[in-house]
């Protein structure tokens, strides 16, 4: 039973800081995802928690005790690597039992625990094979099995799904979620894929350039992104973000096109302010082909030409040009639309976001 706490955690290589003093509290049994683009420091942070990377500054606590100077083996953690890192010269059984063997646990106990894990992960048939004789998905499961067998306080996952094909990835994702429900341990999961982060975790930590941009539940980071970066990173296709100037209850975009200033922000900005206006594709839809997510009190309609369509079956993405920029709209329950057709769009401004162009922070306050 172990919460994990990071206090002012710093990692630097020479003079270059890659993690800039981050603070984070992971509650016991919580599933937390560290997400961000490559080079944001998420893997480095995970490796510092694991003890594979020296800590340049700050404290890592596991179960309330600082572990900065403990070697990985003394932290009672398990880690699933992106490359799986299975021992190629051992069978699946030996791979899974390795940590127990090193820990000098009795063979009978090892067998029970390995078989238990094998049953959970449906690996019984492959126990005497070598990793080279397994498919990618099976290797992935063995790697998870090896992690389970240790009964660790904390599970660490380092992009465990990125070597799997799309179909398998969804499948294993569900398995990881089931695993979390079953073993009830703290899990820290690093990924660059926001969908994985959203679907798996209790809370998401969005990182950029060695800083934490926002920590929140999937719903919070989606609905109330704290920064422009989070707004653009979470959600697919990404949020439409465009510069505008506030003028007399209106937002004026490049080329003079305007939208009403969303009610929520009227007291937050003054005339002449420059802002970044953000609206998700879900909240721009051809009238009658969307679901307004709020109370739809603030819907603004506008006729615009469609430049490109991307039909996905259950929905169609429409690319529209407004204010000299391309905006994406999501059309639910789609009807065929040709390029160049002028369509009436609903802009659900109750879902709009405004960010400061200088700090990138939300103006919601």
């Amino acid at each position: 039973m172990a919460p994990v706490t990071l206090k002012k955690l710093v990692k630097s290589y020479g003079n270059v800081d890659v993690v800039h003093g981050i603070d984070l509290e992971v509650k016991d049994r919580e599933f937390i995802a560290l997400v961000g683009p490559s080079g944001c420091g998420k893997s480095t942070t995970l490796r510092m928690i694991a003890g594979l990377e020296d800590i340049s500054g700050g404290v890592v606590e596991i179960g309330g005790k600082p572990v900065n100077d403990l070697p990985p083996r003394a932290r009672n953690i398990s880690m699933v690597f992106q490359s799986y890192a299975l021992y190629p010269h051992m069978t699946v059984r030996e791979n899974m039992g390795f940590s127990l063997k090193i820990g000098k646990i009795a063979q009978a106990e090892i067998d029970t625990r390995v078989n238990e894990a094998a049953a959970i992960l449906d690996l019984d048939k492959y126990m005497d094979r070598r990793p080279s004789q397994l498919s990618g998905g099976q290797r992935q499961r063995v790697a998870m099995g090896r992690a389970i067998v240790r009964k660790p306080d904390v599970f660490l996952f380092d992009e465990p799904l990125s070597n799997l094909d799309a179909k398998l990835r969804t499948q294993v994702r569900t398995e990881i979620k089931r695993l979390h429900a079953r073993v009830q341990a703290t899990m820290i999961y690093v990924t660059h894929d926001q969908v994985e982060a959203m679907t798996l975790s209790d809370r998401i930590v969005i990182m950029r350039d060695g800083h934490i941009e926002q920590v929140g539940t999937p719903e919070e980071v989606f609905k109330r992104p704290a920064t422009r970066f989070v707004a653009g990173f979470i959600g697919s296709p990404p949020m439409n973000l465009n510069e505008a100037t506030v003028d007399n209850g209106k937002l004026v975009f490049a080329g003079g096109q305007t939208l009403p200033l969303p009610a929520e922000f009227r007291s937050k900005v003054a005339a002449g302010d420059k802002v970044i206006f953000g609206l998700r594709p879900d909240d721009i839809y051809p009238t009658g082909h969307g679901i307004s997510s709020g109370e739809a009190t603030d819907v603004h309609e506008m006729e615009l030409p469609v430049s490109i369509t991307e039909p996905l079956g259950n929905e169609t993405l429409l690319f529209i040009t407004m204010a000299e920029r391309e905006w994406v709209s999501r059309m639910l329950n789609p009807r065929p639309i040709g390029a160049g057709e002028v369509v009436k769009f609903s802009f659900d401004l109750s879902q709009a976001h405004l960010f400061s162009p200088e700090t990138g922070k939300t103006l919601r306050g």
Partner: protein
Amino acid sequence: MDKNSSHRLKRRWLKVAHFIGLFLAMLVICLPGLWIVLSSLRPTVEIMAKPPVWIPRDISLDAYRAMFGGAGQGGIPVWEYFRNSLIISITSTIIALIIGMAGGYAFARYKFKGKSGVFLGFMLTRAVPGIALSLPLFMIFARVGIIDTHFAMILIYVALNVPFTIWLIDGFFRQVPKDLAEAAQIDGCTRWQAFWQVEFPLAGPGIASAGIFAFLTSWNEYALASQITRSVNSKTLPVGLLDYTSEFTIDWRGMCALAVVMIIPALTLTFIIQKHLVSGLTFGAVKG
């Protein structure tokens, strides 16, 4: 003739040409060896005959009998030479492997100042012909008083082999993914255990091949050994070969017999270990 059968014919011809080519290549490689074995079994008259006698007429094991009986011409102490060769080669190989493993691992896994410089230095030592060092070595060893000892030869061969074993073993450790040692550490190993439990077994085939190379270098080396070894105390087999030449005659048959005796252990060793050399053990460790 339709296209299909003309292609089939062409392929058959290519196959035949392929076999002939391979046969010729193998002939060039194997004939000298065969000739040595053959010559060790025939009388000198036949060996020296002009034109050469291709098909042996008179075959006997006299040379071997004489050699191991210690009663051959001049009574050459083959057993002693054999013992010297074994002691020197095996000891120097083991030491070179230990140093090579430590060095190779350091080069493969750690960053340190002057790494590439040191590495280049090692490679450069390979460029110096051993014989160029024989005179200074002789003088120094004579002063120190270790001429004609096993110790001197072991020292030389370790120095000769270490750069090469480091280079070779470095390459093999590089092929073992770093993740594996990290996974082992998380699984409860110390750094030291992670090395012996995971990295060493995986680099094993590579280390074995480095060992073979080191052994063969020591086993076959002649130039330096001929300077530093003086007597039955430390003379190795290649140097011992020279015992078959005297002022006016050369005992070709005896020499060839000894050459065969030298080749056999090297060949056997390579044969035993070659199975391990070609095992693709690291496959499947990471995505593949």
